[in-house]
């Protein structure tokens, strides 16, 4: 094979040399043959003549030899390509339009795939050989998965496990770093010493952690991201080795992580890393001795599959639990799940489903574009019928002709794909700028990469084959007379009938897209009007991380107390409250409670006395949390109505107790059911515990005010007044903060809306083209009718109604298709009916309107025809 390749390449690269060799050989052949004849006594001239006759035409011999090698295919392919380029440049407008249409369709697919690639498929930036990296998560017998494990468990797996080449662990920590300048709080990670090794990340400057530095007592060392190094440290190489204050403790900066690497979870941007041994300083309320706060991942040993690794780690987990005497309850996390490390916490399934729906929508646009191109190609080949017929007549094989036409199609679609790539680059840049709600430190890097380019070209080529094959086959039809007949006798109706069906299909598909966009828009609207059960108006919120300031419990309590008192004294402030989390941000705390010895999971929030006032969360019965519910006081809880109903069968919920974390908790009040983690959840059983009875340094502040404009400044000023060293406070309106809850719908509405508009544009261009071609073909008939005194209005109506006849069935089919397909979107619709009549009617009407507009122009042109000129032209 290699020899074939080399020989062929030699021929391709130096075509002249190969031919010369062949000629030499043939000449030699002739000479030898002549010599042989001469030897038998034939006269030299005659001998030569005979020899030449025997050898035959050198041209044919040369052709035969050339056809014998594979390189023939390449060179004829190149010839096809050259011809295609020549013909396409001869019709630049046609070429440009086809490429633009393909670019739109391919761009739609490429954009969505690019986002999908970035979110789901692209390796974690900066990480090496991600294929063998696995997330190690605790799981239950029923397969449900937890996220984090404790340090002792991690250490056990790390020391005993054989199936992984290294197990690393990390936990989140807020780090308030102050070098020379002002302090700022960043997201940090506490990591095991092998964290960077397992990931295969190399330092951009300095070094990473040594094994000894991660072993308690460890060393106060820190690594920062390149972005932080540049922004906060001026990119100064001498900064390495410098001592900085991290959460109030002196730490030495030892290295800088490479620019691309921002932690394991794409989007959750990490700016600093410290060894786990720094936990006592940086996260003093956690402990390496217990508490599940570590995420874990590892690299599979070569030849070990995930299942085997999960088996081994599960066995180790069970042994470890037994050794520690942990009870083996049915709902214990007593096994380990080993899944690909995807860069998305909690795996990719939900996002994958969502993106697949969008990808499907984009594929519809590509189909619509393909149909347009097929129509245009068909027209082009019809126009070139004579040329093609001549080529057939001169002996060009049908296959050869199809190959030539498909080469042209392929060229158009590849160029279109490149255009689509450009479209996608622009569109993803736009999507990246789509403001992400709230304070989450997420950056999305959606831009297409080489894989996307490859997929774009491949998808385009397949589309080109699908939509180009029909016209090419038609163009290469062998029967010349047939074709000529078809050209003259109006037999072209077959083609235009097909064209009309295709346009109808386009209208149907773009209607489906627009209905999807409409439904998502309704969902956004519905979501924005969902009553969360509390009042967000005039509520400002900010989150504090006193642990990252180096505050101990006493100082933390004092800080929150002082802040509350200062803010309560501000003019316009109605209420000030705290909770351990901001509602509607998809986060939740779940734990088991026992009601009459029956265990069940319930959600809980830790709140202070002001929380219910600040959010206007009504107490139905009993009382709210009060200041007296402090450490040492009886443990109490306020339950929501859903949990109250679970308690009620045995009498009024107020006054009853349930067990939570091995303590009896008395229900003192019932609060109205409210949305908690997200807007579309089914309300879970939930209870509020007093913040003062939890050791919870991280708190969200809620300030209800009549003067929302000045509240941000007031809060920041109050914080500064309490401790001027603290990093700046970020204050946001609760309503803005919780926009995240609607982000998927908003994004989907924008994306499907854009796709639908593109599809509609293409469909209407197609419709316009067909209707005007139809009107042009009927010029004679129209001219005659006008000459006979037909009403111009009737002509106009006639052409427009042709357009309606084409689009109308498309609208009907599209509505049916949408009714069949839209239930797929149900999970993201906030209860908007996927067959919502209003949306369907509105979109249907929109398409009919568009059809009228698209057919009106050719109709008016037809109605304005001058019958005399038309008939004379014939």
């Amino acid at each position: 094979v290699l020899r074939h390749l080399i020989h062929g390449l030699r021929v391709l690269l130096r075509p002249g040399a190969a031919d010369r060799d062949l000629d030499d050989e043939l000449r030699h052949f002739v000479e030898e043959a002549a010599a042989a004849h001469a030897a038998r006594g034939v006269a030299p001239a005659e001998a030569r003549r005979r020899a030449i006759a025997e050898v035959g035409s050198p041209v044919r011999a040369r052709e035969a030899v050339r056809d014998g090698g594979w390189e023939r295919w390449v060179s004829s392919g190149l010839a096809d390509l050259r011809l295609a380029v020549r013909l396409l440049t001869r019709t630049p407008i046609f070429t440009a339009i086809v490429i633009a249409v393909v670019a739109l369709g391919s761009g739609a697919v490429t954009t969505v795939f690019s986002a999908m690639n970035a979110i789901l498929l692209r390796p974690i930036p900066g990480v090496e050989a991600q294929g063998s990296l696995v997330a190690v998560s605790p799981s239950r017998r029923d397969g449900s998965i937890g996220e984090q494990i404790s340090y002792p468990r991690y250490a056990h797996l790390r020391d005993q496990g054989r199936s992984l080449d290294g197990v690393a662990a990390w936990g989140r920590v807020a780090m308030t770093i102050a070098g020379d300048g002002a302090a700022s709080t960043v997201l940090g990670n506490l990591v095991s010493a092998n964290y960077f090794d397992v990931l295969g990340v190399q330092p951009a400057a300095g070094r990473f952690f040594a094994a000894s530095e991660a072993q308690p007592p460890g060393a106060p060392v820190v690594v920062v991201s390149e972005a932080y190094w540049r922004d906060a440290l001026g990119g100064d190489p001498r900064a390495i080795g410098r001592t900085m204050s991290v959460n109030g403790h002196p730490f030495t900066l030892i290295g800088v992580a490479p620019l691309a690497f921002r932690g394991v979870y794409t989007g959750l941007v990490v700016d600093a890393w410290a060894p786990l041994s720094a936990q006592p300083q940086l996260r003093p309320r956690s402990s390496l001795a217990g508490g599940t706060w570590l995420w874990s991942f590892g690299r599979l040993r070569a030849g070990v599959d995930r299942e085997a690794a999960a088996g081994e780690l599960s066995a180790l987990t069970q042994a470890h639990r037994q050794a520690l005497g942990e009870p083996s309850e049915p709902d214990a996390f007593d096994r380990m799940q080993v899944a690909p490390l995807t860069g998305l916490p909690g795996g990719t399934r939900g996002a994958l489903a969502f993106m697949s729906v969008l990808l499907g929508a984009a594929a519809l646009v590509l189909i619509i574009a393909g149909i347009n191109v097929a129509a245009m190609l068909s027209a082009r080949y019809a126009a070139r019928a004579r040329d093609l017929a001549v080529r057939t007549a001169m002996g060009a094989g049908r296959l050869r002709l199809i190959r030539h036409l498909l080469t042209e199609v392929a060229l158009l679609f590849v160029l279109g794909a490149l255009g689509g790539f450009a479209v996608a680059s622009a569109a993803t840049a736009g999507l990246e700028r789509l403001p992400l709600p709230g304070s989450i430190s997420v950056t999305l890097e959606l831009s297409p990469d080489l894989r996307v380019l490859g997929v774009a070209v491949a998808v385009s080529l397949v589309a080109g084959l699908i939509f180009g094959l029909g016209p090419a086959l038609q163009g290469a039809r062998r029967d010349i007379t047939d074709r000529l007949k078809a050209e003259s006798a109006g037999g072209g109706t077959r083609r235009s009938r097909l064209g009309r069906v295709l346009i109808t299909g386009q209208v149907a598909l773009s209607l489906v897209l627009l209905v999807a966009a409409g439904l998502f828009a309704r969902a956004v609207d519905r979501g924005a009007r969902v009553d969360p059960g509390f009042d967000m108006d005039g509520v400002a919120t900010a989150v504090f991380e006193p642990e990252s300031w180096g505050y101990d419990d006493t100082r933390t309590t004092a800080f929150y107390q002082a802040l509350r008192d200062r803010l309560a004294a501000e003019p316009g402030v109605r209420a000030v409250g705290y909770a351990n989390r901001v509602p509607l941000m998809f986060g939740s705390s779940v734990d088991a409670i026992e009601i009459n010895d029956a265990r069940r999971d319930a959600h809980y929030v830790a709140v202070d006395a002001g929380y219910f006032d600040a959010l206007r969360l009504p107490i139905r019965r009993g009382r709210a949390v009060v200041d007296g519910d402090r450490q040492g006081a009886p443990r109490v809880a306020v339950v929501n109505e859903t949990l109250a109903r679970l308690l009620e069968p045995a009498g009024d919920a107020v006054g009853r107790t349930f067990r939570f974390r091995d303590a009896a908790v008395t229900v003192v009040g019932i609060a109205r059911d409210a949305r908690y983690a997200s807007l579309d959840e089914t309300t879970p059983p939930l209870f509020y515990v007093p913040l003062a009875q939890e050791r919870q340094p991280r708190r969200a502040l809620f300030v209800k005010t009549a003067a929302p404009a000045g509240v941000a400044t007031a809060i920041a000023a109050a914080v500064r007044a309490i401790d001027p060293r603290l990093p700046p406070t970020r204050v946001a309106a609760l309503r803005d903060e919780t926009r995240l809850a609607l982000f998927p719908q908003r994004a989907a509405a924008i994306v499907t809306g854009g796709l639908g508009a593109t599809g509609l544009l293409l469909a209407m261009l197609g419709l316009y083209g067909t209707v005007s071609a139809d009107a042009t073909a009927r010029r004679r008939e129209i001219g005659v009718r006008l000459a006979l005194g037909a009403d111009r209005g009737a002509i106009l109506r006639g052409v427009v109604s042709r357009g309606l006849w084409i689009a109308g069935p498309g609208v009907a089919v599209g509505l049916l298709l949408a009714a069949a397909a839209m239930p797929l979107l149900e999970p993201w619709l906030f209860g908007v009916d996927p067959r919502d009549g209003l949306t369907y009617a509105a979109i249907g009407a929109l398409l009919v309107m568009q059809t009228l507009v698209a057919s009106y122009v050719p109709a008016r042109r037809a109605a304005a025809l001058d019958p005399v000129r038309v008939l004379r032209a014939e």
Partner: protein
Amino acid sequence: MSETAASTDVIQGTLDMLILKALSLEPMHGFGIARRIEQTSKGVFKVNPGSLLVAFQRLERDGLVDASWQQTESGRRAKVYSLTRAGRRRLDEETAQWTRRATAVARLLKAEG
């Protein structure tokens, strides 16, 4: 010419074998091979130079023959082909197979007659 009248085209698929056989004695140029096939077959087979050259290219690419340009005694440039080890092996295989088939066919024809 009497030879020409009696000659036929080479049996489909045997040209390669015949070329290899011709080369098994000594390296030869193209015309030499054609003449050898004609002579040895006593003029039964006549080789078309076109198909011969195609066959040379194929055999060369398959690594069964080597080719090199040499000066002949008459001072002309000639492409001389020689058998490679793989070519010799292939010749043995094909010869064995051909003999087996030919015997079988001959036997069948005899039985029929």
